[in-house]
């Protein structure tokens, strides 16, 4: 049993399918997906893996989520009212007015990478009692002791997926935490 979902799937195609483990999913994707460049994610959109369109049904796979590869560029995007874009911060008119549609999210970065400027925003989206900003800084500085003190061992990179999502500087928080955890493992602490 797999579920096929996401804005990149045609309306009629968004449902459950019964497939054999090991069967190729190519015909299914060919039929159900919208035209254009699509990204197929096995698992959820926060922490799933990208899979090819001719991959096979895996023993553990239960959900495929399809997103449009959004390479569109918006004219003067930094100053538009933002009525038609989702943001969790109150900088878009859509969020300020509390508009609640079904947002169509794509894979766009919506901006380029910058040094960390704003602090404290990520903690709002952190369910654990963790100081996200300082944990990232410790990980970037390769300070394993401080990482452990700040509780990196209780976490998994996936816990920081929401923090990555909301970050206006487009920092790869999950990647930084993952590297930090690997470093600790290498040092055998």
């Amino acid at each position: 049993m797999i579920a096929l979902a996401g804005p990149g799937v045609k309306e009629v195609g968004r449902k459950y399918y019964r497939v054999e483990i090991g069967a190729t999913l190519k015909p299914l994707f060919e039929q159900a997906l919208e035209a254009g460049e699509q990204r197929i994610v096995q698992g959820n959109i926060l922490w799933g893996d990208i899979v090819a369109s001719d991959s096979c049904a895996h023993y553990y796979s239960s959900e495929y989520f399809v997103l449009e590869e959004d390479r569109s560029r918006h004219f003067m995007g930094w100053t538009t009212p933002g009525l038609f874009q989702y943001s969790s911060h109150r900088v878009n008119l859509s969020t300020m007015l509390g508009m609640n549609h079904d947002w169509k999210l794509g894979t766009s970065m919506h901006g380029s990478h910058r040094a960390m400027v704003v602090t404290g925003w990520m903690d709002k989206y952190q369910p654990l009692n963790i100081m996200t900003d300082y944990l990232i800084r410790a990980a970037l500085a390769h300070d394993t002791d401080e990482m452990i003190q700040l509780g990196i061992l209780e976490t998994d990179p996936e816990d920081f997926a929401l923090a990555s999502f909301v970050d206006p500087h487009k920092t790869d928080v999950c990647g930084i935490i993952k590297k930090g955890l690997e470093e600790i493992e290498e040092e055998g602490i």
Partner: protein
Amino acid sequence: MKFLFDFMDKKIAPLFEKGGKFERLYPLFEAGDTFHRTPGDVTPSAPHVRDSIDQKRLMIFVIYALIPCILFGIWNAGDQFNMANGIEATLTANLVRGAAMVLPIIFVSYLVGGLWEVLFAIVRRHEINEGFLVTGMLFPLVLPPTIPLWQVAVGISFGIVIGKEIFGGVGYNILNPALTARAFLFFAYPAQISGDKVWVGSLNANPLVDKLLGTVTEGADVISQATPLAVAAATEKGASAIDALKAADFDLLNMTLGNIPGCIGSTSVIAIVLGMIFLIITGIASWRVMISGIIGCAAMGLLFNVLPVENAFAGLPFYYHIVMGGFLFGIVFMATDPVSCAATNTGKLIYGFLIGSLTVLIRVANPAYPEGAMLAILFMNVMAPLVDHFVVQSHIKKRTAYARALNNA
């Protein structure tokens, strides 16, 4: 439009990319390119979706919050000039006169600061950072409208290079660059910027505007007027500071409205509060710093009222301290600079409170510097990492205690 974009992507872009003719100038191209259209990058790995906010949007919202201050500052500069020179002027005449005084300052600040920013970006091969947009606008707003333009250029150069770029650019600086620039001018050229006297305007300031408005302004000199802070600080022992302020035509109403001489952007409490509400609603700047700063200012003011100090300034009610001088502008726009302020939430509360109380302390206890807000903010900028250190350490302590309790249970 589409034709232009295609032309950019196919013909212009390759010149600046790796191997192109102008490879070294890529930061310049990148800034222009992402200025007119958002970048088309896609997420490299999980999480596959990202929020639609980016730093450009973040920074431009601070500029939006500054708009009331800018507009009021332009009008007020013109109004003060015309009043001081005894010219009957309409709203438009005030705006034109003010614009002729203020816009060159903003222009020079952006031009000179922008040159440094681009130079460092090209040499260091990083992107041009949007933080400069805010610095370049904040700096003119804390200057008196009659400051010589060469001083603006020198000041912003100092602020950008020493205050920011030598540390590595936006995100790495310790001090607020706009305030660093102002502090430099404050100590280097006290005659033009010092807190006790602000130049309202010299009559032969701009012959072009005179012609435009038909005003005759020949043969007069520079006119200067004292700011409320200077009046209050100069009050003699035993006298009431409120009376002294009244004698110099300052009361709570005109200090709130802001039609008094002072720095371009920081005279009007109403314009600043509009910006403050905007910043808090959009969540761009930290309300913790602003609110605790105002509370700190009020608390210290009250403390001085109660203490038996033989200083007329100390007897001033606390709300005067909030509306006077550059405190409110400082706490709303300068102290909340996310890079130089404390990074933890608890730290922000402590940081704001200390700025508020230090401002009043410097004003009342130190007669040499009637304006305490600038020095208080710069001092707390330096102390912010220390505040954070204690907050983080207490967090770690709590974590360890919790872990120990779990192990024992």
